[in-house]
């Protein structure tokens, strides 16, 4: 079930993203976001294309991509579930929720379910600290997690 595009396709789609954003001051992060939006991850084949366009070294692009937690070097599952691991959520039983979620999904952090349904990622604060414990499913925020909400989330990602 490989969904990874061919490398020539990657180069041309990468160039299209770059052309839209290269006029910005300090365009590298916006370009990388654009590429991740385009492919769902930042393909290795895109890096030399970016380096060439911005007149910087491959190493520099690699250094930037790998510094930031957001950029993935391989595709995620169909759903991306992020669960907050920070203090405010810890104070409301977030650790137990995270453990239960891993158990329900059968995967650990930074892992994708074998059926490709979901990728589980830790996140450090969603700014929902007065509605803890919190999570984010495909960009939608969920607060005051409990067993019932966890089961709803699991049912949704398995659809």
């Amino acid at each position, binding site marked *: 079930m490989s969904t990874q595009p061919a490398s020539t396709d990657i180069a041309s789609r990468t160039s299209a993203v770059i052309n839209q954003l290269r006029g910005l001051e300090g365009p590298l992060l916006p370009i990388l*976001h654009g590429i991740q939006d385009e492919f769902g991850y930042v393909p290795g084949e895109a890096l030399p294309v970016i380096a060439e366009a911005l007149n910087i070294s491959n190493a520099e692009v690699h250094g930037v991509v790998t510094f930031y937690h957001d950029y993935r070097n391989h595709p995620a599952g169909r759903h991306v579930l992020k669960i907050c691991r920070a203090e*405010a959520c810890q104070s*409301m039983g977030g650790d137990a929720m995270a453990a239960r979620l891993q158990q329900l999904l059968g995967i650990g952090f930074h892992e994708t379910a074998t059926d490709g349904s979901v990728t589980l990622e830790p996140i450090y604060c969603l700014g929902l600290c007065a509605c803890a414990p919190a999570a984010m499913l495909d960009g939608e925020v969920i607060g005051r997690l409990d067993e019932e909400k966890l089961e709803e989330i699991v049912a949704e990602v398995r659809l």
Partner: protein
Amino acid sequence: MTATIYVPGDSGALALGAEKVARAVEREIAARGLDAKIVRNGSRGAYFLEPMVEVETAVGRIAYGPVTAKDVPSLFDAGLGSTHRLSLGNPEEIPFLAKQTRLTFARCGITDPLSLDDYKAHGGLKGLERAVAISPADIVRTVTESGLRGRGGAGFPTGIKWKTVLDAVSDRKFIVCNADEGDSGTFADRMIMEGDPFVLIEGMAIAGIATGATKGFVYIRSEYPHAVATMTAAVEIAREAGLLGVNVLGSSNAFDVEIRVGAGAYVCGEETSLLNSLEGKRGVVRAKPPLPAIQGLFGKPTVINNVISLASVPVIMDRGAVFYKDFGMGRSRGTIPIQIAGNVKHGGLFEAAFGLTLGEIVDEIGGGTATGRPVKAVQVGGPLGAYFPRSLFDTPFDYEAFAAKDGLVGHAGVVVFDDTADMLKQARFAMEFCAIESCGKCTPCRIGSTRGVETIDKISAGIEPEKQLELVADLCNTMKFGSLCALGGFTPYPVMSSINHFPEDFRPAALAVAAE
């Protein structure tokens, strides 16, 4: 007359089901053929009442909360009056809100965030109107005299920073808004960006005019997609209305704003790391000097301020320095949006003059823990802030008073823990978090944090705990004084405060049993 029903679009409210509530309200309006519209306001910040629905009536607003989608038909059955069981009456009279002093958050939760007419009708743009009428030096003087200090955590006087940039000679200068609000327990930046985005844009424009900067960037963390969307839309609206552009409010001042999105690095909340990230580099901390005010973004003089610092400027310009300065205590002037979070009954944002004690905040305003158990510890100021025990609850909310107790106000997040909290675990997490988020530039932070985790693990395993505790203290000392920035430099606060205030949690259970 078209009735107005407010259902917050704030992400805290959304996380509690506000979207479903809004859809249910829509359905009821359609099914009953009512002449009513829905406004997606920000949150007033009383999250224990969210989703809080408000209805505009002849006698003012009536609030209901917390409302679920299935409560909605009954609200309409009751005629949207004050007799419904979820009615909270006039929202302004809800004690949690009535007791606040809302200066920076005056409009948040009340207006339509993207209505410039609403913004102006509630006192918006008056600060900027005054700023374009006076000299840059007078703007800077007003901000300096107001006593405003950086709300991001460092508490540096905002006016002095602006003065440095005003006096710097350069072909270009920048205003950078630090909206990388990564501290757990804080959400004030998010709330204002989602609930009153124009106040931030107005504050940035004033900063630009005051210092001669023509371009502003708002660096928003990627964990805040709703804030990014609202700010992006607000900037467009502000441009069309002439609030931004080549002639700000018809004056000869040019200023424009661009929204940028972070990429999940906590350290980018540190100002020099943020500047590197904006430039498209790894978010590695820069050594200071040079100060960003002299050589900041792209090497140009740059004002870098937190969201709340900038969003507090319009009210200062409008009401004057003396008005603002009259609030507060000691050298902490004005108001501070305290974010009460974690295991607390009445969680939310509480803007008040500096000077409330920690006990008043946690016990009286916050109402104690959500679980009903005793409060054990309170972490103030995010992951780099100290854990305070009950015995320090008389500490007033003030930069100097917290520093005197080996803590920090930080971005004013207060996270409450009940008596089930294990402080060894919290200390370990502080080190672990530092290891995950360290930019890697300086050794105390990069290596110290990892060694810290290992050493604390030895304590819990009962391996020479006394020696390990000495080692942790020594390590913390190195990190505190040897790190380049606050990430490595302040991680010792949560660690040492846990050890000092809760020593019993650092005696491993096995040893404690063996000793009996």
